[in-house]
């Protein structure tokens, strides 16, 4: 299970212990940081809250679905820290049976799915704009996401929704 909390005003961190490793349970931690000590962007808190929710006992009730993989979470958060702007809308986050996670954004004709799945070596990003679709391995996802990130900003989404 992953334990998370707000570490200080500019970061959210969590740590995990793997029951399989006990008694040498290693605590590992990841922190989301605002750029250069700035406040965390708006998407950070919803992301952490959602991951915590997915890691809860209720979400683990599906048999043959594994607990969330800490490394996949770390990969996903690293991706978000690299590619998200301060005003980018938070992704929807879902769990995979492997313990991997999927991040999705959808607005107007843009859809993004970023899959972090080390167990099955299935990490990939899929970006769809209208009928066109592009795919890259997750380790090469940044530039593909960058091509649509401006159209996933909260102001842009709100503006186009009002139009």
């Amino acid at each position: 299970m992953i334990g998370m909390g707000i570490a200080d005003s500019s970061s959210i961190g969590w740590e995990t212990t793997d029951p399989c490793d006990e008694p040498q349970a290693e605590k590992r931690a990841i922190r989301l940081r605002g750029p250069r000590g700035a406040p965390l962007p708006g998407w950070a808190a919803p992301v952490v809250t959602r991951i915590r929710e997915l890691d809860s006992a209720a979400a683990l009730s599906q048999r043959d679905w594994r607990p969330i993989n800490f490394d996949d979470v770390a990969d996903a958060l690293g991706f978000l820290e690299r590619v998200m702007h301060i005003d980018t809308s938070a992704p929807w986050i879902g769990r995979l049976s492997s313990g991997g996670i999927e991040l999705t954004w959808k607005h107007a004709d843009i859809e993004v799915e970023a899959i972090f799945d080390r167990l099955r070596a299935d990490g990939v990003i899929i970006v769809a704009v209208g009928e066109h679709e592009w795919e890259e391995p997750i380790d090469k996802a940044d530039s593909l996401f960058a091509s649509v990130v401006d159209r996933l900003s909260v102001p842009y989404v709100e503006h186009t929704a009002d139009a």
Partner: protein
Amino acid sequence: MHLSSIACRSLTLSTQPTPDIPAVDAPVSDESRVYRLIPVSNCKAVDGEWEFQSGAFDNASPMHEKECPHDMSVVLSDSLEALSRVPHRLPANSLVCAADPDAWGVAALDVGFLRHEESQDILRTPNDDEPAHGDVRGKKAPKCRRRMKKNATWVVQPSVQPE
């Protein structure tokens, strides 16, 4: 027994088969459908409705190497009909949903689509808890899950209201 995530059923039919339903080795026609139980954790709330995401169509990830990692647990429409049961009652009647049936919905996929466009095999894998149980066997890469999402339709959405 958790219906949504049962892996390859090596322990099929530990009881006598129900005479009215198709035999385990009877072919499943292209015109049949499969029903997939989907929890709200695999759904995004959009305009007050639940929208299932690609991860809802993930294979199980069994812990044991002897079990097949390419099975997605479903209920077969022809077996269900033979038992005079209806799909929208599956959340209320399935053990996997017993803790919170309102948090589960049922999506349908056409067997013909799964077999011919996604190269999946449809297996009859009845078990003690669900005599109409089946598995959709085949690798499901992220793009495959995405196509399944696009081709699936709700039979019944989770009755719990999105926040």
